[in-house]
């Protein structure tokens, strides 16, 4: 019974687990058959309906959007790790809670949740940690 009630208060209901998100990499058109078991994951956007992640394998970085109204997460774009690391990351303001991030010239105006990071420096640090591990 408690499990049933807890569903109403659990903010994670309807969202996929980190394992399911890293597994979603396999649905990418650019998936290179690389192993995903050791993929690193970074959540950068979080609302009641959507979550967005960067998932780095040994070869590519994938941007995945998980929408709890959709049946499965969507790979929005991906890029080889080597070129992703050369991208200049820039930020812009959108609202009190949300900011905009450009992952280089090809992936612009992505929303990010400010409260997930202490500042843009931490965001950049996490990206570097993700792609350089």
């Amino acid at each position, binding site marked *: 019974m408690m499990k049933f009630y807890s569903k109403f208060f659990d903010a994670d209901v309807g969202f996929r687990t980190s394992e399911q998100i890293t597994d979603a990499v396999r649905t990418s058109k650019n998936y290179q058959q690389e192993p995903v078991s050791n993929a690193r994951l970074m959540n950068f956007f979080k609302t009641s*309906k959507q979550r967005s992640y960067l998932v780095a394998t040994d070869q590519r970085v994938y941007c995945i959007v998980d929408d709890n109204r959709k049946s499965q997460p969507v790979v929005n774009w991906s890029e080889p790790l080597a070129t992703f690391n050369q991208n200049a990351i820039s930020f812009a303001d959108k609202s009190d809670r949300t900011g905009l991030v450009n992952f280089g010239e090809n992936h612009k105006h992505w929303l990010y949740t400010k409260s997930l990071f202490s500042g843009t420096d931490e965001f950049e640090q996490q990206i570097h940690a993700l792609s350089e591990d």
Partner: protein
Amino acid sequence: MNPNLSDRLDRQTMENLLAGLELIFFEMTIVDKENNQNPVLVFAVACSIVGAAAVILDLTFYFLRGRSLLELKHGKSTLVFLVAWSLGALIIGWAGQMAKIFEVSVTAAVTVGFAWPLIFTRYMREKALEETQDEPEQNMEEEK
């Protein structure tokens, strides 16, 4: 604070409260800053009195008709329901005054006293809805 002054203020507040309750319940007058110095306190207490009356009325209805209109399971816990319902009405009445939702009238006090759980859940639901409606949405376009 000087104890005499404190006593005088307490007495003054109590007099204001009783005068306000008389205005609201027996003269059906809207209480405001012009006719009472403590309208928020008057309203909160009026709501809690109506809340207690609501549970007593519900108990009598339960004895007469065998069911509770407020959906309470009467019995040993009725006294707890009475205190809890009354306290809830006091808090919602006070919060409603802070948020300037209600005027200090008998109609508003009766509404809060009888239906504060309904008002509370609806208000919270609307607030949650407002928050989620303003949420920005990420681009869901699939990779090319």
